[in-house]
């Protein structure tokens, strides 16, 4: 078990390095270097450029040095918690990102649980009642969920809520809590708003999960140990959940690995539509204004988040599957 965990953690390191490289490439993508962009921007808006500030930035990021030195400077900065400077906001990046990332995490985790809670029973039902009208219905619904872009679901929900209920959905907080410091009231307010993005982001993933659960369980149901369990005289439902469902859960849990990137992707777009104060809209704005340290940091951290999620799913997997534990 310990060996397995150590292995998993070690395997993440090269992944994180590659992720950091990709993020760095993204920072470098826009034509011209960061400082030139910065200066033209400032000049355009009528500010005078403070030469000493430029020199300071130059030294800090080694912008006049070769690319690998720049990468080194940047990544060592990141490791110390210095993510660079957002010229759009005139603030260090790390003052901007953490709350947004935390809220992204909240939305994503909520969606993950939502999609599990929905997909699990439906998947079991669809497998046990294979080819029943219910199974066909859910299968079709699943396909529909897969085919509908997240933002369409968000748009439709907004439209229906506004048109027929008179609600204006969007955001994660009521106006009075928007700028307030964190308090119990703000958390409760957040939970009240969280369900809409949760449902919207979760829906697409749910469709895939239902199929995974259904197919896994169908596989398991045809295995000999199910017959053994039946031959013991166990009650049908008890037998179903103790044996085949228990085993079908294993690949279901391992889907977290690909679910998380999808959910984060979905949350990014949905956040723009629903104007959530999460990473998505800020990332979009940063990209549009070529505020590259901010954008790069988001990409880096969102990708790292999925890595950690994958690690968690590996741990869960080891917990539910003794074959992995005793490998």
């Amino acid at each position, binding site marked *: 078990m310990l060996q397995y965990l150590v292995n998993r953690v070690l395997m993440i390191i090269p992944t994180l390095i*590659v992720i950091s490289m990709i993020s760095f490439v993204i920072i470098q993508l826009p*034509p011209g270097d960061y400082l030139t962009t910065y200066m033209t921007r400032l000049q355009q808006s009528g500010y005078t450029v403070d030469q000493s500030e430029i020199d300071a930035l130059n030294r800090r990021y080694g912008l006049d040095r070769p690319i690998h030195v720049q990468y080194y400077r940047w990544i060592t900065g990141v490791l110390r918690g210095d993510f660079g400077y957002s010229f759009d906001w005139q603030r260090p990046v790390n003052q901007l990102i953490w709350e947004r990332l935390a809220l992204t995490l909240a939305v994503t985790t909520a969606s993950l649980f939502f999609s599990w809670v929905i997909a699990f029973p439906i998947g079991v039902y669809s497998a046990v009642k294979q080819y029943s009208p219910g199974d066909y219905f859910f299968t079709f619904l699943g396909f529909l969920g897969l085919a509908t*872009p997240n933002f*369409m679901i968000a*748009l439709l929900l907004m*439209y229906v809520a506004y048109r027929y209920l008179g609600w204006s959905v969007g955001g994660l907080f009521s106006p009075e809590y928007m700028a307030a410091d964190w308090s119990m009231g703000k958390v409760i307010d957040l939970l009240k708003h969280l369900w809409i993005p949760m449902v919207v982001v979760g829906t697409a993933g749910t469709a895939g999960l239902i199929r995974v659960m259904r197919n896994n369980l169908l596989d398991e149901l045809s295995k000999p140990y199910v017959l053994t369990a039946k031959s013991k005289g166990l009650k049908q439902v008890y037998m179903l959940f103790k044996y085949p469902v228990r085993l079908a859960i294993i690949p279901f849990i391992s889907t977290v690995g690909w679910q998380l990137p999808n959910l*984060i992707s979905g949350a990014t777009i949905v956040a723009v539509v629903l104007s959530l104060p999460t990473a998505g809209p800020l990332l979009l704005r940063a990209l549009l204004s070529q505020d590259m340290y901010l954008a790069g940091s988001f990409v880096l951290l*969102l990708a790292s988040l999925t890595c950690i999620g994958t690690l968690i799913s590996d741990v869960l997997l080891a917990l539910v599957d003794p074959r992995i534990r005793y490998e």
Partner: protein
Amino acid sequence: MFKRSRDTGRDSQESRIYYASQSQLIWRKFVKHKLAVFSGLVILFMYLVVIFAEFVAPYNPNQRNTYYRYARPQIIRFVSEDGFQFRPFVYGLEREMDPVTLRRSFHEDPSQVVPLQFFVRGHEYKLLGLIPTDRHLFGVEDDQVVYLFGSDDLGRCVFSRIVLGARISMTIGLVGVFLSFVLGLFFGGLSGYYGGIVDKVIGRIMEILRSFPQIPLWMALSAALPDHWPIIRTYFAITLILSVIGWTDLARVARGKIYSLKNEDFVVAARLAGTSEPRIILEHLVPSFMSHIIAAITLAIPGMILAETSLSFLGIGLRPPAISWGVLLQAAQNIHTIVLAPWLMLPGVFVIIFVLAFNFLGDGLRNAADPY
């Protein structure tokens, strides 16, 4: 003797079944999957419309009509106040102004019967890009308008824009998938055929790419595309970006298949006969799992379409004046517009239909890919 002769009779009957070629078997199994066949026909129909897009669209998609802004969709009718009539028609639109909000809106006026005319003259275009003509599938008299799907903020015909936008939306997936296919086959082939360290390294890269949240990455890459690029170049750049991640799925299928096939007798025989390695892969291995690849490709297209739509919707994919379903949906970004003109969400409905059809088709193909 009787016994024997009957046996041989049965034998030849059986061999007729067993000797059906693989593609025949796949086809037979596919045709049984009714939903997949139907989806295939829907897709075929949609591509036909795309090919003749200018003919199908009654208006030039960029033609503005400032009088008819946010005009509501008109319904094709056969029954008027005067009873049934053979020629389909729409009711004319009448503009009214809300005295309080001063907002203009349109309603259908049953007193104005506007008959639809077929093969009418309209704006000029080149059919298939070659034949200059001004004929359109349908239209109305010049002093009237027909907006089957309503009009947008500039009074452009949403129906015409959806039909023409389909051209980009429905091809970008194909081009992207083609690129992914080439990349996937190359890397998956290398990985599965050589195994060992090559397999490990490629596998690792694929794993990393797959664990990357695609949308943020796509967003970052496409945001870096310069604004001033022409549509066509942006289009290809986007397909390239989409296939950066898209190839991993196809590579996985290719790798798995090659891995299991490479020690089959016919491959070993080819190797012993001195066939070169790339030739073994391309001539012996690829054909034997082509059906799986086709299924995987079909299932990969929807992802690409959704991605393009999402990126364009956010304003960092294709940009106006390009027309794609995603670009059209950009108009539906804020709640006030949607409430005012819900028909602007219609391009999304087409995205859903198209993607749904591809998923069903791909599902049917995947089931049929293993005919035995």
